[in-house]
């Protein structure tokens, strides 16, 4: 009987709390969005599954190990505990992902047309206006965000998952779950969020602008660029160096042509392994008390606003550049400045083709698109620096 009771008492049914049940439903919803709707499945499948695992009562996925006085392990920790503390709290996983993303990034279009970097800068306006929005909500007593929280929420507008995770795990780890989910969800929603804004801010004539073909870029330029970017970051903004340093390292491995086996592994086995564990580890922060509260609603709302403002800023910046410069830029590619590589560039291309079926913008949009990655990493560096000193 005692055993019967022990089994029953330890069963999920006996222990489960409403919050956990709701979070398991949230996890299943994330899986549904990922699998059925194709929302960034590489991250949302592990995050969704991790959410369910973390909320199984009594399974101990998130339990810390217990040691006796002599330092011998008495009971091991849970899988998600180890993943979170080894890979996310330390910042290692986002940095390795950034190395992999660097190894998958082609800077060619950016090098052929460097001024598109400005579009990648403009789209980060979304980040900082969202910070203002978050502190505003706090000021009016509607929600309760510190300046560290506000900075982490703003970075959702950077449309770059690993950057958002890196910043949040440094500044306000308790918000990691909702912020990561918001970041990846909105990145997946780019094809829905962006087009109306793009159409609203441009005239049909502007959307038909054809851009001059990109010049060829030499192998040497491609090799020297990541080093140039690294040195500039090192001299001006060391707080952005972890993210951009690993990004440049990955890109150098890709372009230098002498370490292809390293570059291949970085782009495949290594980034895949880390992606799985990063996703599961983010899931471990999706507990009811951290997710089911008004702040999460606020984060989701602010994240959406950030995306919209970022998109608009990119488009408007492109229009401004056309006022100044003689080489006209199709303002649609400004929207790709939010990053969300390569989705945002594809959206720019698609909206462009609607107005002019001969106008292929994809490659032109890749420039601002990767510029957006640099831009949000720079923004991340500034935030970590300034907030750390506030």
């Amino acid at each position, binding site marked *: 009987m005692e055993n019967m009771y022990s089994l029953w008492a330890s069963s999920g049914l006996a222990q489960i709390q409403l919050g956990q049940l709701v979070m398991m439903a949230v996890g299943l919803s994330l899986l549904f969005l990922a699998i059925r709707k194709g929302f960034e499945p590489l991250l949302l499948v592990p995050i969704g599954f991790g959410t369910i695992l973390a909320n199984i009562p009594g399974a101990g996925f998130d339990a810390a190990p217990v040691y006796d006085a002599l330092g011998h392990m008495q009971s091991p920790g849970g899988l998600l505990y180890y993943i979170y503390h080894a890979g996310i709290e330390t910042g290692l996983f986002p940095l390795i992902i950034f190395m992999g993303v660097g190894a*998958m990034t*082609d800077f*060619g*279009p*950016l*090098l*052929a047309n*460097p*001024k598109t*970097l*400005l579009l*990648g*800068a403009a789209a*980060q*306006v979304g*980040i*900082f*206006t969202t*910070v*203002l929005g*978050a*502190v*505003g909500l*706090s*000021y009016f007593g509607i929600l309760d965000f*510190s*300046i560290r929280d*506000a*900075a982490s929420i*703003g970075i959702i507008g950077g449309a770059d998952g690993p950057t958002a995770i890196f910043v949040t795990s440094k500044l306000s780890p308790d918000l990691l779950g909702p912020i990561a989910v918001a970041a990846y969800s909105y990145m997946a929603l780019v094809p829905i969020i962006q087009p109306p804004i793009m159409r609203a801010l441009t005239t049909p004539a502007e959307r038909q602008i054809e851009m001059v*073909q*990109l*010049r*060829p*870029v*030499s*192998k*040497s*330029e491609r090799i*020297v*660029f990541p080093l*140039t*970017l690294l040195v*500039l970051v090192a001299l*001006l*903004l060391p707080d952005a160096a972890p993210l951009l340093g690993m990004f440049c390292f990955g890109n150098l491995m890709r372009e230098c042509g002498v370490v292809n086996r390293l570059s291949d592994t970085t*782009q495949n086995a290594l980034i895949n392994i880390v992606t799985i564990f990063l996703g599961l580890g983010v899931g471990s922060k999706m507990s009811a008390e951290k997710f089911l509260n008004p702040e999460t609603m606020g984060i989701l709302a602010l994240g959406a606003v950030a995306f919209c403002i970022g998109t608009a800023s990119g488009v408007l910046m492109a229009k401004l550049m056309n006022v100044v410069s003689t080489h006209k830029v199709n303002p649609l590619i400004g929207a790709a400045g939010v990053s969300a*590589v*390569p989705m945002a560039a594809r959206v720019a291309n698609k909206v462009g083709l609607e107005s002019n079926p001969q106008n292929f913008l994809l*490659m032109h949009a*890749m420039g601002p698109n990767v510029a957006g990655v*640099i*831009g949000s990493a*720079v*923004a991340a560096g*500034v*935030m970590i620096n*300034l*907030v750390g000193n*506030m």
Partner: protein
Amino acid sequence: MEATLIDQGLDLMLFGMGTVFTFLTLLVGVTHLMSMVVNKIAPAEPDALAGALPLNTSGAAIDPRIAKVIQVAIDKHRAR
């Protein structure tokens, strides 16, 4: 305290956007310069049109060119 929070937010916005724009504007110039210098020092064989190179995100084990060769073999086989 709460006024400070707003102030902090404004400061973040101001200095944040300022830095982002300054940095990327500088990078535009430096990149132009870098390309000029590099192409002067090493006037290189451009490896095809940059714009034509798609992002490799497939991670496929089989090279597309080899896949094409195999397709040719299939076509010939079927055409017999």
